């Protein structure tokens, strides 16, 4: 599409839509400096303790549950991203470039999670793990302290499962215009399969793999529903923690948390953009 002079009406509507997108974010940030604990009415800028206007930010860092939830969220996101990116990329290579028994079925199976409501998948995994764990615990007659329960492990495994289809989708899109002759040329020049993959294939699909990994990471970081059904004691993630807070009293700590969250993501994106520019 070419650039053209925009109609003033279109510009106005666009500005309004942007306003709608940003109003909640601005409210969140402003209220993170609220003097009132209750977070309902803005009663001026807080100025308390050594942190002054950043009182709620200091409170946040002193809050052990938030720090634990942050750690859990990052462990889950990193682990599930690494595993799902590897498995998803392998699947994309298989589907795009090979013929094998059961290809059509595999393709359908990998699209299915994308069109399945998350809650259905979450419930299914919950039913599955409780059945398997119940069965193992009874069969081995485990003592209460040794029993298998839901926790970090089950959350990670579930995140891997729902990320793989998205990684595969993104990497396949990248493989679409891939020229097989480049690999053939490398092989003709005496490179073995491994060298060819490392020196030719991987660099060519790297942007797709990276995009897939970023998507997997974002999905994991933001996931609520599947985590909700597969989490257990000691595996509270930030979204789960926030949801729990909403049922009790919310202080501006939560706003401080979301402000930091946005800032961190902005910085990460800025850095990744900078790296891409350099290349």
């Amino acid at each position, binding site marked *: 599409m*070419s*650039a053209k002079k925009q109609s003033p009406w279109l510009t106005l509507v666009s500005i309004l839509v942007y306003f709608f997108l940003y109003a909640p974010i601005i*409210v*969140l940030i402003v209220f993170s400096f609220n003097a009132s604990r209750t977070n309902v009415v803005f009663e001026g800028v807080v100025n308390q303790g050594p942190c002054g206007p950043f009182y709620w930010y200091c409170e946040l860092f002193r809050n052990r549950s938030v720090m634990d939830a942050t750690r859990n969220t990052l462990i889950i996101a990193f682990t599930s991203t690494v595993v799902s990116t590897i*498995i998803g990329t392998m699947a994309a290579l298989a589907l795009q470039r*090979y013929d094998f028994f059961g290809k059509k079925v*595999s393709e359908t199976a990998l699209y299915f999670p994308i069109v399945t409501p998350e809650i259905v998948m979450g419930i299914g995994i919950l039913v599955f793990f409780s059945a398997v764990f119940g069965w193992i615990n009874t069969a081995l007659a485990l003592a209460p302290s040794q029993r298998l329960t839901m926790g970090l492990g089950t959350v990670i495994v579930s995140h891997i499962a729902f990320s793989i289809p998205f990684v595969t989708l993104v990497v*396949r899109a990248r493989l679409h215009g891939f020229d097989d002759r480049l690999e053939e040329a490398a092989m003709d020049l005496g490179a073995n399969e491994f060298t060819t993959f490392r020196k030719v294939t991987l660099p060519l699909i790297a942007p797709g793999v990276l995009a897939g990994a970023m998507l997997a990471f974002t999905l994991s970081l933001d996931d609520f529903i599947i985590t909700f059904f597969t989490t257990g004691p000691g595996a509270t993630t930030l979204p789960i923690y926030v*949801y729990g807070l909403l049922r009790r009293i919310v202080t501006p700590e939560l706003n401080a948390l979301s402000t930091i969250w946005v800032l961190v993501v902005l910085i990460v994106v800025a850095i990744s953009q900078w790296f891409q520019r350099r290349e």
Partner: protein
Amino acid sequence: MIQHIRENRRLQGFLLILPAMFVMVMLLVIPLTLTVITSFGQRDADGNVIYTFTLENYWRLMGFTEQGWDDLYLRILLRSLWLAVQTTVIVILMAYPLAYFIARSPEKRRNFLLFLVLVPLWTNFVIRIYAWVMILRSQGVLNSTLGAIAGLLNVPFQPLDLYPSQTAVLIGMVYEFLPFMILPIYTSLEKIEPSLYEAAADLYANAFRTFWRVTVPLSMPGIVAGTILTFIPVIGTFVVSDILGGRQVILVGNLVQRQFLDARNPPFGAAASIILLVMTLVLTLYYTRRFGLGEEIAAG
């Protein structure tokens, strides 16, 4: 063995797909099968599942209970469906102008404008809904702003009673999924060749006609992809309705969640979840057959 793998491309492909298929079987096929089996079961007094074969849970969802006709659950299903349709339509109406605006902006500015669409997505899903609680509640930001404006203009002001309500849920849903519609529509608009517009103009089509006969049809893949990315999560969520609807707005998602965690009736929850899945798959299949496949999902 290694030599055999090297020479057999079919085997290589099979080995590459194997881990993904293992995960899908373990965490999708088996869990869904178990859900179906559970949905035909019953529960005992302690909330444990007894595996039998009864269609009772499905009958109850359809309104046929032992006590007679009760359309409580049917109404929940229809409400979820209606809310998902409303959300999708509003999201399309809001996303299209913005996507069009971005696509017609100078090339250098486009990435920045798209970036602006993405930033709100990086706060957390749950926190974004909470922000709407802060805005919509009776003493919240919206009412105090409107009250202040009314005070300035010296007109009487009755605070809006928006939270908790179904309208609040609708606003929250629209907000959550708007970016997922903007991106695919933008992607398809951006691909349209400028020469097509020139051709339309040469053939004496006015701006309106060009828009309806050239732009809209060519951006259909984006609308389809955006609809899939919006409709499916909306119809299955329970978080937005839980936080913004209070106890007033019960959707299928809330029903499923409560049957599993509060009411301790997994068989009934499983049946509701299977109905939700079937409903979603049938609608998605019909929609993609009717309007083409959502090729833009990958791009968005």
